């Protein structure tokens, strides 16, 4: 074997670093995507305003830090109930009226919500890039030749924890079972006495709480500005389509795939082109396996 191509110490370190970065990034993407896929799976609505709730979550963390120097991880205790409430109110005011309307009406409603929220942020807080720099964002941990940032590790751990709690909730609680039943067959669930409106309220609130929490978690890692949600939500769409819209386990796997494409793409082609890598992946998946890598075939042509 050509000695230059043999895996040396340096190559293994690079691979390990890429692997660790992938997993850390994937965990955070999963929390963003899981809310989106939950809302889609149960309500059959693609929430085009999902990124804007992430942006609001980042702003909450930013203001808590700059006004009271509260650590973003403590802010989570406020953020999660706050965004649960915001999601609940948004459902009642905006989504309830269009839940049984056509896809186009739903698209325009959430797009309108997205435009309004982005510009509320612009008017209130200007377009400046703002950053949160708590002490842990500058601590670097080194293990076996890999290096990563403490904030990233904590964000990953919390995101993973929250995602697992959500999984457990969906799987083992009565409410979770009711929600899954509604996702499977809305009419049958109604006939069994399920209050689907209540399920939708809860679903939207949980989905927004997830993304609000994700906003607090990413705030030490990325700058926040009124359109900050866009870069993440585009990613989340890729993740969710890869995993099959509505499929929560698929969303986890999709997050890892997108994170891997991003990490490996940035390593080989430079950070500038990483987005091209996953958009091409996205379009390729849409063309060849539109129901997702693990989804049921044919879902995309039903338009659901």
């Amino acid at each position: 074997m050509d000695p230059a191509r043999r895996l040396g110490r340096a190559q293994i370190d690079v691979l390990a670093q890429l692997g660790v970065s992938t997993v850390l990034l994937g965990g955070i993407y999963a929390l963003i995507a899981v809310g989106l896929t939950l809302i889609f799976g149960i309500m059959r609505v693609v929430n085009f305003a999902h990124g804007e709730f992430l942006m609001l979550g980042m702003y909450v963390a930013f203001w808590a830090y700059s006004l009271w120097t509260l650590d973003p991880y403590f802010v989570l205790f406020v953020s999660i109930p706050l965004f649960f409430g915001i999601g609940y109110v948004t459902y009642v005011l905006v989504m309830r009226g269009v839940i049984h309307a056509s896809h186009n009406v739903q698209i325009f409603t959430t797009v309108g919500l997205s435009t309004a929220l982005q510009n509320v942020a612009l008017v209130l807080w200007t377009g400046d890039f703002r950053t949160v720099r708590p002490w842990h964002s500058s601590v670097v941990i080194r293990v076996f030749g890999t290096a990563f940032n403490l904030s990233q590790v904590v964000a990953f751990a919390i995101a993973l924890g929250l995602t697992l709690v959500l999984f457990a909730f969906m799987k083992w609680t009565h409410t979770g079972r009711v929600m899954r039943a509604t996702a499977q067959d809305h009419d049958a669930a109604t006939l069994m006495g399920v209050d689907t409106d209540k399920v939708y309220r809860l679903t939207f609130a949980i989905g927004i709480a997830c993304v609000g929490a994700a906003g607090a978690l990413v705030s030490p890692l990325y700058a926040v500005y009124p359109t900050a949600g866009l870069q993440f939500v585009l990613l989340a769409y890729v993740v969710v389509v890869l995993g099959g819209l509505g499929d929560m386990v698929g969303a986890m796997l999709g997050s890892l795939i997108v994170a891997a494409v991003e990490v490996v793409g940035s390593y080989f082609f430079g950070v500038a082109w990483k987005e091209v890598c996953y958009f091409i992946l996205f379009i390729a998946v849409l063309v060849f396996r539109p129901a997702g890598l693990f989804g049921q075939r044919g879902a995309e042509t039903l338009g659901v």
Partner: protein
Amino acid sequence: MVSLPPSRRAAAVLLGVAALAPLIVRDSFVLDSLILILMWGALSAAWNVAGGYAGQVSLGHAAFFGIGAYSAALMTARFQQSPWLGLVLGVVLSLAAGGAIGYLSNRLRGPYFALSTIAFSQVLLIGASRWRGFTAGSEGIPVPFRPGVWTLGLGHVAWVYVALVLAVLCYAVEIWLEGSRIGYQLAGIREDEDAAEALGIASRRLKVFAVTLSAALTSVGGTLWAQYVGFVDPFYVFSIDLSIRFALNTIIGGLGTALGPFLGSILITSLETYLRATFSGFKTGFAGIYLVIYGTALILVVRFAPEGLIGLAGRFGAWRARADA
């Protein structure tokens, strides 16, 4: 003239006013607003061809706008050729890209299609903003001003008429769709694709046709806009905001109606220019308030008045007719 329906008469009046305005008004601010209203109206009408008449809701039409803008800007700034050649090149490229997107519309419906169009415009955005050697990257391209019709270096008055021609062209396409066999077939596809296919309508081919036509018109609009404004910024011409703007104008005015996109453009563009002019000095962010209003308006319109301003006007007309009787 008497036999025309009220919306056609209103369109004739509006376009006539736009044609006469430059003869009376010389104020460049007013003329500038008029040009932008006509251009955004025409572009929204182009979006309406796919989104309204054929029911293929794209959130990536900025891709075609950007293709048109870049073709002409590169043609003039880099190769010292006429922007008209750039316009033709933009149309050719947009026909190809529109064909590809139209093909996607045959495989994907509803939100899946909307997502794929967003992804497409984002790929072009990244390409244009990162390919420094050719497109000048994220700095954008200033379009050189060379006086003359062949180089599109025109004054405000002449630009009003260029924009007017574009607006009439897009309006005419819409009117043609409303009365033609293809238009009815597209409406059938929009309402129920499976039923339309069962009736023997070639839905796949027609959807590609509608999306491609819409793409080509959007590209022409993009070229003219770039030549008028004189600067191409990739983060603007390929932005999702721009794609949403086309949809927003159309829905507020009336989705799938010929006059709707223009009514929407009159409302949105004039409020935007007014707020920009008022708040430009001390707080630029405040100009964003018009988008808050329109985002909210979009939510309210699709919920309570899904036929937009046109539908409201129709309801008002019917109510008055009843009150008179």
